[in-house]
């Protein structure tokens, strides 16, 4: 699409409400932020940023194949440590590569809603990550999107291309420091997983009580490609709405979505949407929600369009308080013969029997609840390198995950 075409569309969609989620008043946020200092190495980042990243499981100075950090609207580092992976800030990438026009806004429409329109109208920021043909690494690209100023509308537009036969792991931590009173994060992401490429994408969110979040993600997976997408939200947030859409476009493509949510407040509307458009494709979506307050809407949609496609949805929720709500919406849309699609949804409480069992061993009711909650959130994630698996486990096994306050 021509640049002016994108801008036109964006302009027309400026007031277009999103299909899901509460409506955000974009006017109440500022889009200009003080530019941040660009650094050459991850070690040179401000210590508050390094610490915030660490809290969302992103050890920036640990072993990685590269890093990307955006503070407010400024990409402050985009650096590869492995020749097989290219990492750039989006503006530089668009300048350098004409071919990017074939990917830019191809999986997310600029006029999908007012949030995509907002990003389309903004100067490009965010990351461009490219795993080169046949290049494989188990060391993750570590990225952090840091919203550090109050009342800011942080906008990012990311593109990931995993070329044929590559293997790429990305972990992104999105976070706000405690002093940020209020903020909005709008992120457009487009992932292209090409033939036989293997990608894992892990996103950990840790926002503030007055932060609103609207990610918009489109993913396409070609023949033999695979995606393991993991989303973890354990900290308070005001509102979040996201419904990433993956299209399994080539024979044998595989997608797996894991969602782990511990909600104490806010309006959290999350899910995944998978189109199984090619033979022998399969998709799985597993979500585990613990709600001690706030409203969680857990969506899952699978659309099977060719014979032999296999899809499974699982939404399990533990509702531990009268002040909370879990609304689970699993949808299966079969549009072909010979499909194998299933779903499993449950909303309930902690089993008395398990609680009593642990209490008979001397655990207090609170300790037992917390052990059961942590166990419940310990989702088995496939397709991740062991180190990354361990880091995710560390996040979901934190001591502060309890029953009703």
């Amino acid at each position, binding site marked *: 699409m021509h640049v002016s075409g994108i801008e036109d569309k964006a302009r027309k969609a400026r007031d277009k409400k999103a299909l899901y989620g509460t409506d955000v008043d974009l006017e109440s946020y500022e889009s200009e932020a003080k530019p941040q200092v660009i650094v050459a190495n991850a070690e040179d980042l401000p210590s508050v940023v390094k610490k915030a990243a660490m809290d969302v499981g992103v050890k920036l100075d640990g072993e990685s194949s590269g890093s990307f950090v955006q503070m407010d609207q400024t990409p402050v580092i985009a650096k590869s440590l492995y020749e097989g992976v290219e990492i750039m800030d989006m503006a530089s990438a668009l300048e350098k590569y004409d071919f990017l026009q074939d990917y830019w806004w191809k999986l997310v429409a600029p006029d999908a809603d007012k949030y995509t329109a907002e990003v389309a109208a903004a100067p490009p920021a965010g990351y461009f990550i490219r795993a080169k043909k046949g290049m494989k690494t188990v060391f993750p690209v570590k990225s952090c999107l840091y919203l550090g100023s109050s009342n800011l509308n942080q906008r990012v537009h990311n593109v990931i291309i995993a070329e044929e036969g590559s293997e790429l792991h990305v972990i992104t931590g999105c976070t706000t420091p405690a002093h940020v009173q209020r903020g909005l994060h709008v992120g457009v992401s487009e992932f292209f997983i090409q033939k036989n490429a293997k990608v894992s994408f892990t996103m950990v969110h840790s926002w503030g009580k007055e932060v609103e979040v609207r990610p918009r993600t489109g993913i396409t997976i070609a023949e033999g490609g695979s995606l393991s997408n993991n989303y973890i939200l354990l900290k308070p947030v005001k509102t979040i709405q996201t419904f990433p859409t993956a299209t399994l476009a080539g024979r044998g493509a595989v997608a797996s979505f894991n969602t782990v949510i511990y909600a104490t407040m806010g309006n959290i509307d999350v899910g995944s949407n998978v189109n199984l458009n090619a033979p022998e494709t399969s998709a799985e979506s597993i979500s585990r929600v613990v709600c001690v307050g706030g409203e969680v809407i857990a969506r899952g949609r699978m659309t099977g369009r060719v014979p032999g496609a296999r899809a499974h949805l699982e939404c399990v929720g533990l509702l531990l308080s009268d002040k909370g709500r879990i609304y689970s919406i699993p949808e299966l849309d079969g549009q072909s013969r010979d499909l194998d699609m299933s779903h499993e949804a449950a909303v309930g409480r902690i089993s008395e029997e398990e609680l009593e069992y642990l*209490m*008979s061993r001397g655990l207090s*009711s609170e300790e037992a609840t917390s052990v059961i909650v942590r166990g419940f959130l310990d989702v088995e994630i496939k397709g991740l390198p062991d180190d990354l698996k361990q880091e995710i486990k560390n996040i979901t096994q934190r001591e502060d995950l309890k029953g009703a306050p």
Partner: protein
Amino acid sequence: MWLLEIEDLSVSIGSKQVLKNFNLRISRGETHVLFGPNGTGKTTLLNVIAGIPRYVIDGGRIVFKGEDITHMSMDERARLGIGMAFQRPPAIRGLRLRDLIKIINPKADAMAILKKMDFEAFADRDVNRGFSGGEVKRSEMVQLLAQQPDFVMLDEPDSGVDLENIKLIGEAINTLTQKDQRPSQRTKSGVIITHFGHILDYMKADRAHVMLGGSIVCSGNPGEILEQIKKSGYEGCVGCTCPV
């Protein structure tokens, strides 16, 4: 000198009365066996001693270490020294057996305990998840060995267990009840429920009782009582001449 005293205990679940004026005393250092047909209230008794809250106490009391624990919470009782191997324990997803051992007793040597029960291979499995019937029983023993209660209650620790593992479980019960020490030095006690009594070949028991219809109808030497049941059934024990 009594570690546990149960006096005129009556218990019901819903509208059904399960225990009727139940009486039992166990001294320090003693291990008792409970026999009785299915549905007679054996598990109920142990659950009520452990403090599982879904039962209604209609009367009577439970005294442990001289303290009335009839209405004490489960975890308080556990910390006071009561431990139980469940007949059918639940699985806890996401909780590794190794981690549970550490939570039960941070000072426990988890690997040594697992080794004693030939259970090392299960250290990283979720507690009881997908365990076979016999494996569940060893998992229970592993947890009790970490907990080291002063009074251990074993609800059919031998059911579904193969011949080699029955020996391991018997030995673990002896350890928990200090049968390696001289009788005068033992301070820990236990109660075990078993249907076939095979486990009694591998552990030391001091006394046995037959439960029928929610109360004890006969007490005496474990071997003799088992013989009596085998010969003339539970009914044959009613009004038996065994000294109570």
